[in-house]
Structures are given as C-alpha cells and as structure tokens.
C-alpha cells in the first residue's frame, strides 16, 4: 500500500491532471464486457455521411445478389441431407478466386504488444501460405507477460444484408486438412461465438501437428477431440463442440518454449467428412467437480 501511494504521488508530480485516471493495479472486469474485442477495439475514424451513403449503395448491389441466391436456394430446396461416408466436402478452398479476402491475419504487433509478423498469400503451388516470424520479445512494460503469436481467421459467416449466421456442420464428424507445414504444431481454432458476453470468446481448440518436409500431409481430426477454452484458458466445464454454431475458423502459431523464428504453413484446403466408424462424441472424461470450484 505504501509503495502504491508513493507511486501515485510520483505520477502525480509529473501528471497532476491525470492522477485520478491512472490505476496502478490490474483492473479485472469480470462482470460484463462492453464490446467483443475486450478493450482491443481500434477506433477508426468514421467516414463522412456522404461516403457512408455511397458505400451503402455499392454494398447494396452485392447484398441483393446474395439475397437472390438465398431465395433461389430456398425455392430449389436441395440441401445435402444424406450422410455420405468417406466424401470430403471442402469448406475453405485456397484454389478458389479471391479467397484471401475471406481471411484476417492478426499478430501481437497489431496492438504494439509484440514484434511478430505474418502474412497470408498464395504460394507457388497455388495453395494458401500462412508465413511470417513469431517473436516472443516484447517491451517489458510490466503489464504484458508473454507474447509471440500469429493467427489467421476467417471472417464471420453471414447471410445477405450483413446478417450474421453460423455454419452448420452437424452432418460431419471429421475435419480434413491438406497442409504442408514446417514441423511446428499449430492450433486449430473453431470459434463458436454466442449471443451473451460470456460466450463471445468461446473457442474450441485442437493441435495440428505438421510433419514438415516437402510432402503434403492430410490431417484428419475428429471434432470430438476439440476442447473448449475462453481467452486462452481451457475451461473446467467442457462439452462437445456445437457444430451448428461455428462462426469462424482459424489457425494460430506461437513462439512458445523458445520457438522464436520463421514459420510457414501451406494450406490447400480445409474440408469436412463423415466417418461412420468414429463413434466418439467427446474425447475427454468429465468428472463431477466439487461445488464452487468450476470457473474460479
């Protein structure tokens, strides 16, 4: 307490006006979240009213196109309802045109909290290449403990007129990926963002081990292996992933345990499959925990 007071006084010497605003202890806002980015929302300058109207009209054309497609699909009424064992349905294909616009690349450097770099581009083989350099060095400002990550994520799946929707993958039980990595292990993230602030950061994870080398590798991962975490913490109350509520898909790579340096993950496609021989619903046993222990 003594030192805290003193620190406050010291700050007060140089910045008397802002003395009241400076917290010297960490603030835990566990009650509710103001916005989805948890304080990381970058305030961008708002375009002029005229610009907004023009952008809106331009978007309207595309949205009408999407909407027409949706109506057409509704009348055609030809959804895939059959389980087709052994057939892979490709969801994210990097051979498709302007596929890179569907992904967002983020690193710790985005908010000045690290020095990692990353890009997603098309490789010589025509696949998507997520590469860059992860770096765990950071400015020791006393707030950030660890850094060094890079991440790619698809944009939120949506319907026409910017209405948010979700993927429905309930027919499948396997995630199939054709990748070529560099021996690092990557984190597969399946976001199931919910309506309430508690569920905004729900992400189901699993590891993608890459072999490395010049050969392509097909990874087949059951959805039952994915476990729930929120803000990087594995949760106590687990459950199988709700496949009808998947909102984003992504990969992460971190500079943990001295793995600072370049990385490269080449992704050909990400697909889904139904494997009838896989009966597991959730891979992790769930014990009855004592009262008032969960999520504390």
């Amino acid at each position, binding site marked *: 307490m003594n030192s805290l007071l003193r*620190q406050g006084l010291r700050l007060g010497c140089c910045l008397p006006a802002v003395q009241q605003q400076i917290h010297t202890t960490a603030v835990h806002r566990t009650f509710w979240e103001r916005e989805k980015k948890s304080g990381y929302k970058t305030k961008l300058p708002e375009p002029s009213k005229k610009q907004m109207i023009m952008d809106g009209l331009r978007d309207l054309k595309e949205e009408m196109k999407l909407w027409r497609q949706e109506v057409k699909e509704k009348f055609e009424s030809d959804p895939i309802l059959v389980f087709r064992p052994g057939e892979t349905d490709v969801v994210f294909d990097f051979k498709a045109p302007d596929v890179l616009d569907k992904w967002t690349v983020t690193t710790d450097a985005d908010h000045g909290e690290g020095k990692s770099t990353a890009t997603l581009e098309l490789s010589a083989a025509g696949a998507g290449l997520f590469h860059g350099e992860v770096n765990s060095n950071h400015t020791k400002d006393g707030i950030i403990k660890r850094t060094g990550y890079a991440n790619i994520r698809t944009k939120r799946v949506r319907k026409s007129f910017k209405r948010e929707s979700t993927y429905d993958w309930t027919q499948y039980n396997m995630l199939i990926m054709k990748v070529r990595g560099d021996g690092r292990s990557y984190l597969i993230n399946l976001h199931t963002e919910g309506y309430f602030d508690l569920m905004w950061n729900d992400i189901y994870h699993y590891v993608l081990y890459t*072999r490395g080398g010049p050969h392509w590798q097909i990874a087949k991962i059951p959805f039952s292996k994915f476990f729930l975490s929120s803000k990087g913490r594995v949760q106590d109350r687990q459950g199988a992933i709700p496949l009808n509520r998947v909102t984003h898909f992504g990969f992460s790579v971190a500079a943990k345990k001295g793995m600072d340096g370049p990385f490269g993950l080449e992704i050909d496609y990400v697909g889904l499959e139904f494997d009838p021989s896989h009966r597991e619903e959730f891979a992790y046993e769930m014990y009855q925990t004592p009262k008032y222990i969960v999520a504390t």
Partner: protein
Amino acid sequence: MIRRAQCLLRLHGNGGHSLVSRLRCYATDEGNPKQNPNPNPRAQKPGTKNLPALRNPFTAAQDRTKNSYLTMVEIFQERDVHRRNHVEFIYAALKNMADFGVERDLEVYKALINVMPKGKFIPTNMFQAEFMHYPKQQQCIIDLLEQMEDCGVMPDHEMEAMLLNVFGRQGHPLRKYWRMMYWMPKFKNLSPWPLPDPVPDDTLEMAKLALERMCTVDLRSKITVFETSELKDAIDDTWIVSGMSPEQEKLLREHSRQKALYIEGPFHIWLRNRRINYFTLRADADSEFLSQLDERQLDEDDVSHIEVPFFGRAPPRRHNQLGKLRSVHQQDDGTIMAICATGTSTKDSLLSWIRLLEANGNPSIGEVPVLFRFTSEVPAKAEEIEGGASVPATSDNSSQDEHNSSRAK
C-alpha cells in the same frame, strides 16, 4: 513495515557467511523505489541517507548451477523462522530460473513451494475460503505453476501433498494443480512424431531426427549418412544425411534425361525449439502422367453415358486397364526425388551429395542436368555485414546456375 523488514534483513545479513550476505534482499527490479525512505523523490539528495542498492542474490550468484540455486533457497529457508518476504523471494527465484538452467526441473519448483510455511494459509472458515485467503501468496504459487505449465513441466503427486499442506483443499493453487494434472497428461504424448525431450545438441543427431521425421511419408525410406571425405575433390569436409526410398530411386531411374532436376532449399523444419535446414532434389511434375490419372476418375453421377450391359460387352475402359499407380512422391507441384541435410549447407556439400547419390546406386543422376535453386537470404545478409568481401559463392534468390554433374567430376 516494509522498511523495517529490510532493516532486519540487513542486520541479519551483515555478519556471517558470504552467501547469506548475498541473500539479504531478493527484491526485484522495483526494489529501489521501495526502499526509499522519503516518499517524494525530488526532496531526496543523492548520496545522503540513501540505503545501499540491494542486490538480487540470483543475479549476483557466481556459479549458476542447480546446486547453488538450491543452496540459496535453503539458506533463505533457514535464515529465520519468519521467512519474511518469501513471496518476493519466490518471484525473484522464478525470474532467474533460466539463467541457472533449472526452468525444466521439477525438484527446483518443489523446493520453491517448500519455502511457503505449512498450515498457516489454510482457511478456517467459509468466508476465508471464499475470499481467497492470503491472496498474494496464493497468486505467487499460481504463477509458479503457470511457469511450470509454460515450460512443459508436469507436476507429480508429491507436489499436490505439499500444496495441500500449504493452502488446504480450497486453495486456488490446488485448483490450478488439478487442472494441470487433468490436461497435461492428455497432451503430453499427443504428437504423432514423438521427439526426445530435450532434443539432442548434436547437429548430426538433429539432422537424422529431422530426416527420419520427413521420411515417415514413405515407410520404405532409408536414411544414409555420408561423409564428404569419401569423395576425392570435395572442398568441405562434412557430413550429409540423405533420405531416399526405393520408390524414389525408381522414379529417378525413369526420369527423362532431358528434363532437369533441381536442388532446392534451404527449407527449414522445426524439431521442438531447434530449426534444421534441409534441401530437396526435385523434378518438375510429370504433367502427362498426372493428367492421365485424372482421366481415370469417372464421374459416377454423370447419367448421360449409361452403358447397357445387354448388347455385347462393354468396351474396355481405361480405368479397368492396368496402369501405373501414383506414388506419394509425385505431387502436383513436383516430384520429390530425395531430401538431405548437410553439415555446412553450402553448394559444395550439395554437389558432393549428388555425386555420392550417383556413386551409391543412382547412376542416372550423372546423365541428368542438375540445377541449384537457392532461396536463402543468408548470403545476402552476410554480404551486408561483411561488406561484400569473402562471402561463399552461394547464389541468392534470383540466380540459378547449372552444374552438370558429369562435367563437374
């Protein structure tokens, strides 16, 4: 209160053993502002009333070994019954673990937990249990457990007993411990390509491990270690670890003599925290063969050409005929003939690799033009640093030069 504790410590530390004196304060970086008796830093004159700068015993230690680390912990424990500032001590100890090379040692973590007094922090009623009894101490041990988690050190059951003695069943460190013991064993041996932990320091061993890992794509692959000294006129004296399977040998035999082979690299593969450079011997994809394969894929949903089996025999189709199977090495973006890692990663060692492959059962390489395609930025960097002088003649991104290996002999 804090100041008085430090005075006491100084009294204890001034006489006696040298290690003890080194231990008189374990305050970390923010130690200096804390010990300042005057709250206003401007009023303080330099040199007067200033307490001596306190040292962190871990940064001041002479020999940085596990033994000296444990001795310091022991001295702290035995210095007095109160063990004042043990939280700061543990934080300082955690921070300096890497310097002593003990960050992956379970015994050391246990020794640090042992610093905590037993039985004092156990809550005795539900209010204490609910409001995190002794929060600083609990958070300190949670941070210790988190550091263990980050370093991949799995706790054992003895640690559970120790934590129970310190914090009781309601303690938050126990919750962290139980979570770790639930998840860590699940993830520990998950990798389909297990590696020793820690990985060996020898580069040759690492190269062998890397090649073995990359060659798991073809189970018949063989890893061979060549020495360039086997060749007469090799400049570098180094080792070459080469991986090739009988299937790749066959592909190489059948490779057209007119089409070039490429030595490409260096690419890298990570084995835990070590990065190994490797090179590939690659040919362009046999597009003729691959397109032939595509033809064999019949669209079974296509109902425009249903053959009627009643009128005569159905004409033989291509997919019923015997054909070549596509090898795993024949990829869409090229055919991989072999991979290697060399001790020096220079062009000369790669030339030696080609000649050694030729001498060891692949005579056809001698008749095929072999091109080098280096994608390294290292020579460019070296040039930058050394000012353009005495750089080994490895080419950069754009340049390609041809070495007909038969001519090079």
